[in-house]
């Protein structure tokens, strides 16, 4: 008998498998006090109990058998799963643009992990071509798997590493870059790349999916097609996020990397441009511009990197009755930058003042943003605001809190000079601060109103 793993099984369940000398993927007949069952023994999630053996029946269903009921297991073969997308070599067409897809992880392409019972990322150009053959009609695709991490595990090293990979590929002649990324922190990475890639001759498009590609209704394929199209043909040489506009399979929106945010835990249309409009919409090989002020594709533009980052930076999300020790502990632990998401126009309570003063005096750079997400910080309207500025806290205009966090880390990579930091923070490098907010920048419509009901009924939402 070959030595195979009994992955995931432990305790009583593992003993039963050992007693009958059977393994995971074994094609078995199990006699129990409840009758006979035939099927394949599947791996078991490591967090599940040790009282059950999981069987895939010939009908394709899975069931768990209680170990106490198992009387006999007979193995007569094995069938191990080979989850593999039919891999085909991506065709090359000299007249098509060259696009490079950089992988960082996430569910844009994924497969099942039996141990955890969750989906894990899978990625190769051949697999992608097998799963989304439409890509070959758009471009010549090269892929490079930089990382395989869930997006919550992304660090500043991944940001600078990705920026360096972008430069490498653009210098090698890529006509556009697509970056596959988990959606949870995609907007942080988009902001980081917006600052770290100071200028680019070609589009840099981040993409992911809200429904993993192991389901027929996945948004992965359409997002990837739209992102690839944008990278190959669009005129917009910026860092963008390309994700579903509505939850319907209709079009994607191109969001500027410094104004985008994930706004729903599970919707496909989760990414929204905050306080502004998206740059464009893309579908069916057409890019319809919404904004005019964007950086144009230009082969003459050099790709310039600036990948410094000081990670001694934090965000503090203010809540009523916050105690000063929150600020103190950051200072005492050596943090050099704090972004506060304050209430309303940018406020915190009075008990924090001494701690904020102490922080500023000891050289910590503190910037105020708003937890309303939409709107500017305005600290002159109320006395409290002026008092807080007195302490040394600098208003961060309409930067999103997450963007201000990323930017502060990037700025502190350059300088710790108080005035220089403030100057850089308030200078828009990549559209992270807008001079004005147009009236269509804040459109959170409320359901139930007759006009919205009409809209919902007639437009695929």
């Amino acid at each position, binding site marked *: 008998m070959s030595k195979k793993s009994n992955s995931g099984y432990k305790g009583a369940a593992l003993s039963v498998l050992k007693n009958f000398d059977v393994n995971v993927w074994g094609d078995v007949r199990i006699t129990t006090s409840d009758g006979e069952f035939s099927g394949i023994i599947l791996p078991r999630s490591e967090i599940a109990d040790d009282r059950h053996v999981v069987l895939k029946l010939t*009908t*394709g269903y899975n069931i768990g058998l209680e170990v106490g009921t198992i009387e006999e297991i007979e193995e007569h073969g094995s069938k191990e799963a080979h989850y593999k997308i039919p891999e085909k070599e991506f065709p090359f067409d000299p007249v098509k643009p060259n696009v490079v897809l950089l992988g960082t992880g996430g569910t844009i392409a994924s497969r099942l992990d039996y141990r955890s019972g969750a989906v894990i990322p899978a990625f190769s150009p051949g697999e992608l071509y097998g799963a989304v053959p439409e890509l070959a009609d758009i471009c010549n695709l090269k892929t490079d798997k930089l990382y395989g991490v869930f997006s919550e595990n992304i660090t500043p090293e991944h940001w600078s590493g990705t920026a360096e990979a972008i430069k490498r590929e653009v210098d090698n002649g890529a006509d556009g870059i697509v970056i596959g990324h988990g959606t949870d922190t995609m907007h942080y990475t988009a902001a980081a790349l917006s600052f770290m890639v100071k200028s680019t001759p070609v589009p840099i498009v981040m993409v992911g999916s809200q429904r993993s590609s192991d389901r027929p209704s996945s948004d992965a394929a359409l997002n990837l097609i739209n992102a690839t199209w944008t990278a190959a043909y669009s005129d917009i040489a910026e860092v963008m996020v390309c994700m579903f506009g509505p939850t319907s399979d209709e079009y994607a929106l191109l969001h500027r990397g410094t104004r985008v945010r994930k706004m729903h835990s599970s919707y496909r249309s989760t990414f929204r441009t905050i306080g502004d409009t998206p740059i464009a919409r893309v579908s069916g090989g057409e890019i319809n511009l919404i904004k005019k002020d964007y950086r144009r594709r230009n082969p003459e533009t050099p790709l310039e990197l600036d990948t410094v980052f000081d990670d001694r930076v934090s965000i503090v999300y203010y809540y009523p009755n916050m105690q000063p020790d929150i600020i103190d502990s950051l200072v005492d632990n050596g943090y050099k930058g704090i972004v506060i998401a304050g209430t309303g126009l940018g406020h915190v309570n009075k008990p924090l003042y001494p701690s904020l003063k102490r922080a500023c005096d000891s050289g910590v750079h503190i910037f105020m943003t708003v937890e309303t997400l939409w709107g500017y910080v305005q600290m002159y309207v109320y006395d409290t605001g002026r008092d807080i500025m007195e302490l040394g806290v600098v208003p961060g205009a309409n930067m999103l809190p997450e963007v201000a966090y990323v930017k502060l880390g990037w700025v502190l990579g350059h300088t710790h000079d108080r005035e220089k930091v403030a100057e850089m923070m308030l200078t828009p490098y990549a559209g992270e601060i807008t001079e004005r907010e147009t009236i269509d920048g804040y459109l959170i419509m409320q359901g139930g109103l007759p006009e919205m009901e009409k809209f919902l009924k007639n437009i695929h939402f």
Partner: protein
Amino acid sequence: MKRDYPYNNFNPRDAGFRCGLEIHQQLDTEKKLFCHCPAGVYSDEYNAQLLRHMRPTLSELGEYDGTALMEFKTRKDIIYRINKDSACTYETDDTPPFPINKQAVDIAIEIALLLNCSIVGELHVIRKQYLDGSIPAGFQRTAIVGVNGWIPFKNRKIEIFQLAIEEDACREVSDVGHLRTYTTDRLAMPLIEVVTAPHIYEPEEAYEVGMQIGRLLRAMGKVRRGIGSVRQDVNVSIEGGTRVEIKGVPRLPLIPRLVYFEAYRQHRLLQLREMMHERGIEEDNLQTERFDITGRLEHPAITVFPDESFIVSVLLLKKMAGLFAHKIGPDRRFADDVAGRVRVIACLIHRPVILHTDDTSSSAFSHRDMNEILSVTGMKKDDLAVVVWGPPDDVVTGLNEIEIRCREAAVGIPNETRQRMTTGETDFERILPGPDRMYPDTDSPPLVIPRDHVAEIRKKLPEQPLDREKRYKKQGLPDHLTWMMAISPRAVLFDRLVSEGKIEPVLAATVLVELMIHLFRLGGEPETFGDDDLENLFTQHRQGSFTREGFRMLIEESAQTGSRNWTELTAKIGIRRVKPDEVKSIITDAASTVAGVNPMDEAQKFRMAMGLVMEKLRGSVPGTELAQMVKETLKPD
């Protein structure tokens, strides 16, 4: 059931007919299976529309499913209509599932036990892929609750292969060409799927087995009633044939005819295979050729589409002459099976979908068209030509599909899911999906079903209809009341009323079953009468407040007024204690009225007098007593 089939020379049993049922029954729960939407709220009104496309994915064991790929070929736009009262963002696949509805799981366990199944130790939710779009996620969440069950049938056992709990799919609104529309109110309703082994050997038995299981489900009182709450899929095969599934049969009496015709179709398709083999046609050597014939045919089915972008193609099938005319049912020929495939897969909507040179009906080609086809294809006498027209991509898909279907005919009967037609015949719906479309639901953790919980449910199992029937027969109920009472939700009340000998069984059953049906037909709502209300009613009757006839009067009045105060109602409709003298005088009055009416025979006189008397005394004095007294009074001295 009486057999009424056109082919007396075709006996399904001799052909090795085998049939199994998949019974889908919605459960009567408050909420849906994986979200907190209310269950059973149906409406054609909608608040929003959503558009999706479905792409095939890999199964758990790493293979693409055949159906999945077929559906992808059809490239459908799928529109979902969403009513916000009956569907939430779970139904649109924008929110992950909530924990499975425990009420539904318990009902499913109870049914599985009634069907003598073993209950699984752990429930594993699986995704069963449906690329037809009937579920926005592209898969149905389903889990096995019990396996290895059986029900007694005649003098044998019918095995219950498995019982699964699953979420219901959308209701289809329309399906035209590349656009399919669904409404989502039924979506995600909890239901069970009971799968029997193919142990049914006669078409009529399929009905009987379905009836028996259906009655068992109804009798337990925790399943939904009404249109669409029960649907049957029927699996049919004959010796040498293949399992074919007839999908979504809404009523059991339709089944025998459907399965008979399916068995006949398979029988005729096996003959077709022999004919192909005699001509030397095998799966891998069918010779075909394609030609463009755009603009050259004058057939009205083609020229009715003046669309410039349409193309017309002809597919030459060598040595196939005559085979498209091969009969496979009372109204269907092999060409119709082929056309069904082309219609679904290539999305060609114009009838008759394909035209062919075997056709001798009114839609046959004219001489001129035949000459065109001859000159384009150079076809020989034993060749067959099939013409397909429409948008270029769809025509190519259509031609491919015709070739595929003809090659399959040389092998035998394709694994198909077929849809019911009103004639009792069936048409192609899709390729029968295999186990490859099953995938574990990574969003739902396994649910342990503790053994003591199962034991608890087992202890409280209701009595089975078959056992009840035996008991009721012994108690003297006539057959029709036995049949209805055995599955009535009032069975427990019935037993209580009758057990202490207080109420006569026939009277109790008549009130609880027939009177309630009568009330329903009048537009009333029998379910608004609580068991307690009815028990009080019987108590008052036993105490002599009203007669047998009074039940109907009181219940009708109660339904109208909404009151369940029987004393008040009795008074209101004029039922009272009548002194013997008054009874006598009413009868005497009636007798004299009748005496003044001529000419009438004795029977007519009696009926008229009874009518007059009952008008005043119905409910107050038993009709049998009054009849006796009226008879005596009318007796000529």
